[in-house]
């Protein structure tokens, strides 16, 4: 039972990931990317790592969407771009992502309400043998693995500096550079 659910989620991951790379339109690619993230979090959930599943949704699916809205707002050019956006996004283009999400949603509903109890118990025994709480993760991250947190902070810093520098020097308009500097 649980294996089948896992396989369905994995199939959704693969399909949506492939559609992400093959989509020509950025918005469409992003939609499929969000579906991929949701499916990954579903897999985490099935494996008993509920905290990782929640993080997956909050950090990836949530933050990516927010960032994207942020960028579109920054690049907004009034009525012209509104028309452009309307042209970009029809409901019919999102139908694929919608169907894939629907599959995941059905899975979730099934697990929550229609799962036979004995299977549920078996699941608890095989996968939940060591329930990992937020506190445990926090203890690990600030205990033996604290250096990894520092390293990942430096990694993010280097990615940030790289992104800012490259995007800055790509368009050499002096005016924008000054504006960005003021923002920084």
């Amino acid at each position: 039972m649980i294996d089948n659910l896992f396989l369905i989620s994995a199939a959704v991951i693969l399909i949506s990931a492939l559609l992400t790379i093959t989509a020509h339109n950025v918005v469409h690619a992003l939609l499929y990317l969000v579906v991929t993230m949701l499916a990954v979090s579903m897999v985490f959930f099935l494996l008993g790592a509920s905290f990782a599943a929640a993080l997956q949704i909050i950090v990836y699916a949530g933050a990516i969407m927010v960032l994207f809205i942020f960028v579109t707002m920054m690049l907004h050019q009034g009525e012209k771009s509104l028309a452009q956006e309307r042209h970009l996004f029809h409901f019919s283009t999102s139908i694929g992502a919608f169907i894939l999400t629907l599959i995941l949603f059905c899975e979730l509903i099934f697990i929550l309400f229609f799962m036979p109890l004995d299977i549920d118990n078996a699941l608890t025994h095989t996968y939940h043998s060591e329930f990992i709480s937020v506190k445990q993760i926090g203890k690990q991250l600030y205990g033996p693995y604290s250096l990894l947190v520092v390293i990942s902070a430096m990694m993010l810093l280097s990615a940030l500096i790289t992104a800012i520098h490259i995007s800055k020097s790509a368009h050499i308009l002096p005016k924008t550079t000054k504006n960005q500097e003021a923002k920084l």
Partner: protein
Amino acid sequence: MSFYYIPSFILVLGSLMILIQLCFKRRHSFAYLTSGLSLLAALFLQLYLQKNESLIEPLFTFNAQTSFISLLLFMIIGLIWSQIYHWLETLSEQKEEYYLLFLLTALGGVIMVSSNHFASFFMGLELMSLSFIGLIAYCGHDQKAQEAGIKYLILSAIASAFILMGTAILYLQFGSLSFSNLMQTPSIQVLPQWTIVCAIIFIFTGLFFKLSLVPCHLWIADLFEGAPLVTTALLATLSKLAAFIVLWRLMNLGQWQQYQIIIDIIVITSIASMFVGNVLALFQKNLLRLVAYSSIAHFGYLLIVLLLINNDKVLFSTQSFNTQTLLFYLVAYLFTLVGVFSILIQLPKVKMLDDLNGLFWHKPFIAITLILLMLSLAGIPLTLGFMAKFYLVMAAISQQLWLLLAALVLGSTVGLFYYLKVILAMVKRPKNDIAFNNLLSDGNNLSLNILILFLVIGFGIFPTSLSQFIQQIAN
């Protein structure tokens, strides 16, 4: 917190200092000095730490060998750092970020070299490659550099994905991400053997990409040509050193020679790298591409070291002789390569081999330095490169790796051709005499050339002190 972490913390501190200073007022000289001082402090502390006893933490391991390799890494980075200032002055971009990314790259390298855990290894690798993308695509106006940056970004992401997959499979088998757990034979065999071989091949693919060994070598020529020269120097030395050390440690700890397929793969990769690297370099007119291809061949030679660990057919050498070979070869090759790059940085207009024409008659000292470095790369006696190759041949003979030895000899012979081609190009009379007249030759460059010459020729003629030092470390 142990004493061993301090050099890395100094690097972090230096980069944060540059970041803070960058927020208030941009000054090139300040960033230059801050990065230089932190590198110097890290170097001296590392030198001081040579004598400390070894320490194994969950994430990192520190012993005489890792300390020596970190020291080597800091020395190489210091040599490259001394070349940055003049080059950056000629750029129109903002300059301070380069030092920041430079220090972070060095930090990634140091983390990788002493990592004892797949998590710290992977984080170090990512820190290094992410900073490298910034360093490669630093010149925003340069189309080629941007292209090289994108190429490196995508390819290194693929390599990282391979490494992660391999790591995940190994975790499934061993139940731990620590390198030291690879040593213990697990009580229950969870996975069939072929999956473990697959995992090892995945990890090898990722690391072979970083080392640009055949068949993962296609990116390197474009990258060497497109990226700024200083970045190329870093890419050719720091990234390859760190990746090779991790490869060697994994091979050593996991005892992956027990799988015949892995040995076959290493033999094939090694021979193919020697062959492809040397043949491609032979027909190359572009100087940087030539160096790129020759570095493929050199790491092909170095792969022989991986086959030596714990082999039964030892004739006269001990376990530590293999380590000595590795360390000596790395020292020799990396110092020579840094020397070549520092000469190339001093000759900013030289792109093709023909551009070197007449260098010998106009700037004899620079030309002689480059000639000696080329001879060292080719492995001519009385240079450091010869001693390194001598070590390698000796190790290969002691373990009776005849096939690899034949490939090594053949490869070196072909290599001699194109290194001599570079020398001939320098001696040839130029068509126009003014090409090198406006070269800047200040005391900084001169002293650097003398230092490199001293290292390459001095240790080539009197290798005893260096080899004794390395012997001490390897034991």
